[in-house]
């Protein structure tokens, strides 16, 4: 199983391991990607990658608040997300490297938030999930499909 599949099916695997009876978790409508969420707080992009920059620009053009990083998420966390998530568990989306996403995903756990989509561009079939992220951000509604870069991941983290 690859990392992308793991993101999506981890819960299923655990259920198997524990012979558990899955509990239905309420899913906000926007998670299906049908409508952009109002609760999406911010879109993160990595200024070092053209595809990511384009994603950030596209997000800004549809009115999303964006933040550019350079791999490391320390400042984004300390100066922004830590305070924000203490107030409300607002979702974030992004197109970043896997290690930036990994860190944000770990930090989100402090608020029992999780990755609800994670498309590793280098994996086969990533395009569909990357488009789902774009839809959630609202970019696709503006008619722009995201460019993929094998070093990057498109993702959404939410409660």
């Amino acid at each position: 199983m690859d990392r992308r599949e793991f993101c999506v099916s981890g819960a299923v695997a655990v259920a198997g391991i524990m012979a558990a009876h899955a509990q239905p978790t309420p899913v906000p409508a926007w998670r299906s990607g049908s409508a952009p969420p109002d609760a999406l707080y911010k879109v993160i992009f990595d200024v070092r990658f053209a595809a990511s920059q384009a994603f950030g620009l596209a997000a800004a053009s549809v009115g999303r608040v964006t933040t550019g990083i350079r791999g490391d998420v320390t400042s984004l966390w300390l100066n922004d997300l830590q305070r924000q998530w203490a107030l409300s568990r607002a979702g974030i989306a992004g197109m970043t490297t896997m290690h930036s996403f990994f860190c944000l995903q770990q930090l989100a756990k402090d608020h029992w938030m999780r990755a609800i989509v994670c498309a590793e561009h280098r994996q086969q079939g990533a395009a569909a999930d990357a488009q789902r992220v774009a839809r959630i951000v609202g970019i696709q509604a503006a008619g722009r499909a995201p460019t993929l870069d094998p070093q990057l991941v498109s993702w959404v983290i939410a409660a």
Partner: protein
Amino acid sequence: MRTPPEVSQVDFASAIAEFKRTVGQEWVFTSDADLDLYRDAYSPFLNEPEERIASAAVAPSSTEEVQEVVRIANRFRVPLYAISTGRNLGYGGSAPAYSGCVVVDLKRMNRIIEVNEANAFALVEPGVSYFDLYRYIQEHRLKVWIGCPDPGWGSVIGNAIDRGGGYTTANYRNHFDSHCGMEIVLPSGELLRTGMGAIPKAETWQQYKSGCGPWIDGIFSQSNYGIVTKMGFWLMPQPEAYLRCTVSLPRYKDLGPLVETLNYLENSRITSGFPDIASPLNGYPPIGQLQLWNETGPPALTDEHLKLLASATLGYSANREAYGRRTGIAYWELWLSFHGPMEVVEAQWQATQRRFAAIEGAKFRVVNRVALPIDPTKAEDYHEPELGIPSLRAFSIGARTPWSPTPSKGHMWFSPIIPRTGAAIIEANRVFSAAARDLNMPLFRTFTMPACFWERSFIFILATPVTEDPATNKRYREGFKKLIEVGGQHGWGEYRTAPVFQKTVMDVYSFNNHALQRFHETLKDAIDPNGILSPGRYAIWPKHLREKQS
């Protein structure tokens, strides 16, 4: 709903209901989606049946709630596993040592109870991260430093009781050693304070470590004898200046004198910042430069140098040494740092150079001479934890880059303690590189340098990759265990390890027919007769599981 082993569904449902009554419905987690958050992202058993997973999680907000959770667990014999921030990546993450435990997640207990600038100490709860404490200190403009590990998101308490380390001066970077006073909820639910904290009106809980009588703090680290709910730490007064220098030595045989001189200087407190031994000729960076290497790529090597790297054994060849002398590339490079008033650190550096000058060909360089505090916008120019600044830059270790095209999914730290001598470094390289070769584990490139987290010993730390392929992970797990045994045969034991390997590691500590292990078990039976707390942590099993697990 998942259930812990050996607990009936009815009992577990009752326990969960009582947990909810105690901490509030919203702070008890039983859905798969929530429990997934407690999986170990670096688990070497990822998605395999043996992966350690929780049956539920409960997040109390106060010591009283922790006490009540423990009492409930005793009533229903529900096994618990306490975590602080649960970011023990490389050593088990937030997953329990025994699958099916209820994770007691202490991250909501995040009060900074006191930071005393005048006598440089702090008292905190388990949910306080290095970021939190740093922010508090900055916001209150206090002139004290924290000692933090590479990832700043961990818990000051969680890291210390797993006996983690940082990068400031010797007496602060050993995080358990720098603690002073603990508050612990015992497995019975009773509350205990150690050191001066046992005197109801004492004002010296964070000022004198051992109180009177047996000093028991150590047994609450890397163990399962209690849940730590408060802990004091000595902080480092903010130094006036920071001086970072290197000593370069040209010959392979200089390694022994390098270590001996370093030991003298460090044990005399002439140098006390994190010593970092690199080998430029072997292409091995200092730890402090690793994140920079990961971010921007390692320095380019000539074709001749690359060819030489491929050829030497145990980091040595006469050709390599000759190449180093010809090109001015040092065999060994010791990075030292000094913290204190400028005139003091300059004098310490002078004394350091005088000592090392006894080694022929020693060269000296000042890398940074900085008046403190530094401009925060310049922090990125440094390895931040050496300046007491928490960061997450270390995670560039996992970045997919042109110079690291196939990063691993995670890693397990193999980290045996070896003697602080040059000979031990070479011997550890010989022993472990041969073993790793036999086991087909990609752990060695050329020659590995140990880390100097602790005084008087080295940690010979190797990151064993966790991959996306279960068969490879299985091979690495088995290899990892073999390495532990091989280390044990040479008198080397891990300082800390992930639950998967805790039994193998503790088996190495076998003096007098495992007297230490038996003592741990005697304590466990006395302190936690129902065996509810963190069963199996560091291979300490409660009586009812002992036979099954050994």
